[in-house]
């Protein structure tokens, strides 16, 4: 059987073994997105632009699906076991994101623990209302995150995206990414962690100047 990119499963797209940890998934995502980026020297003369874009999309899909699966596994595994996993300390379990909680849970968890704060909820609504605008900036996202009381460390722990990249999103600094193409996946993960619509946010963030 001749190898063919069209027949690869999600792990094969990212060259990962089926038990890959989120850190490995992220590393593979970063690595492959660089290889298939528009300015990549390795792609030159190798693929048509259509093929290249198709592959970028496949990598994106594989990354998002595997990352969300990795999160979901962490969530269901823990109660089923009835006790802490030997490798997980009791302290870590209490922390949001410390036990691979799904990214979108952070904002809800924060809200739940601070239910009496009516003011907080108002701040959140106010911050989120900025999103109805056509464009979303890093500052908008930062305001929403602060209003929701979520720290960058927490988002980083839940999404497995490095804090420096999250900071780059908030400071509108695409130069800090190895290639601009990485931003999309990270913005989506960031948005999901805050309970926002990942597709809408990434669209409004990335295409605001056009």
């Amino acid at each position, binding site marked *: 059987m*001749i*190898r063919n990119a069209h027949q690869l499963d999600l792990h094969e797209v990212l060259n990962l073994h089926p038990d890959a940890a989120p850190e490995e998934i992220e590393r593979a995502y970063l690595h492959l997105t660089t*290889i298939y980026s528009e300015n990549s020297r*390795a792609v*030159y003369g*190798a693929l*048509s632009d259509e093929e290249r874009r198709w*592959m970028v999309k496949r990598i994106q899909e594989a990354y998002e699906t595997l990352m969300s699966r990795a999160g979901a596994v962490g969530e269901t595994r823990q109660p089923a076991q009835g006790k802490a996993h030997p490798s997980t300390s009791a302290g870590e379990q209490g922390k949001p994101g410390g036990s691979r909680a799904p990214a979108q849970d952070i904002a809800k968890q924060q809200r739940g623990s601070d239910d009496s704060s009516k003011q907080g909820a108002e701040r959140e609504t106010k911050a989120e209302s900025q999103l109805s605008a056509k464009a979303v900036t890093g500052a908008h996202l930062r305001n929403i995150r602060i209003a929701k009381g979520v720290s960058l460390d927490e988002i980083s722990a839940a999404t497995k995206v490095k804090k420096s990249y999250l900071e780059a999103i908030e400071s509108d600094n695409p130069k800090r990414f190895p290639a601009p193409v990485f931003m999309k996946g990270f913005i989506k993960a960031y948005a999901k962690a805050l309970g926002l619509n990942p597709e809408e946010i990434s669209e409004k963030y990335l295409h605001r100047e056009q």
Partner: protein
Amino acid sequence: MRWGYALDTSFQDHEKLVWTFGGGKGGAGRTLLSTTLGILLAKEERNVVIFDGNLECANAHTALGMRQPQKTLSDFITGKTQDINELAVPTPFRNLRLISSSGDSISATNHSSLAAKNRLLKLIGSINCAHLLTDIGPGLNFWPVDLFLKGDVQILVITPEPTAVETVYHFIRMLIYRKFKNQLGAPQLENTLSAAFTDMRTSGLNDVMERVLEKISATDKSAAVRIAKSIADMELKLVVNQTLDRHDKHIGPAICEIVNKFYGVKMDYAGFIPFDERVALSLRRGRPFIAEYETSETAACFSVTLRELLNSISARNRKRQLDFITS
């Protein structure tokens, strides 16, 4: 340890290994790599012959610090000698001999007819040695491509420049094209093949191969299976020469990733050789770099690349043995 030793050298004594160095682009470093690896292998007490397959412009002898030998492939092509083994002359290095390409480029160009080249391709297997390192000239026509495919270890050598990168993809397309063509008899299928390959000048091969295989399968199913198997069995190696920075070092694995997913063949990255002006300086002094700067970092990169290649051959042999036992 003894068991490991026996496995790692399983190819050494009873099986000849043909190494081919190709890539299409002139000046990428094929002669440098083949002669250097030849010297390193010979130093490990292996019986090595370097075969200069660049018929139009022989220069492996110069890279080895020699004058053009008296006996060359010209003698074979023009019929002066029938035994190709007579052409293997000693070099300044123990265990290393050279079959030099033509000393007379006019006669080589004029006389190296298709028939003579085909005869050479058939006789490569009869050269007496444990390791035959074949330096292949530039270009994408039938001689360099078919000669390259004769290798048990097929090594593509590139520099990080876009010109070399672009050419190596063309070279791989030609390898696949020849794999198809060498198996096909019917002229109508050859037309399909040529049309399909002309279509894709800067794209991957997945769709083309699928389309052509389907057509072949409709008239000759066994040919389609044979072709698919011979392509799936290919194992190319990639060496990047003259790297300047970390971006250059990343380009090799990146090319392998693309070829593995879009060209239907397996390609592994075997290593890089950094840019080192002493390579050119030693050549001007008429001494191989590896002999002049044996302990340099660049020399270490050659050794690491050789080790990587030998390890991958051992791993492949072990896998084949296992497949044979379990089949």
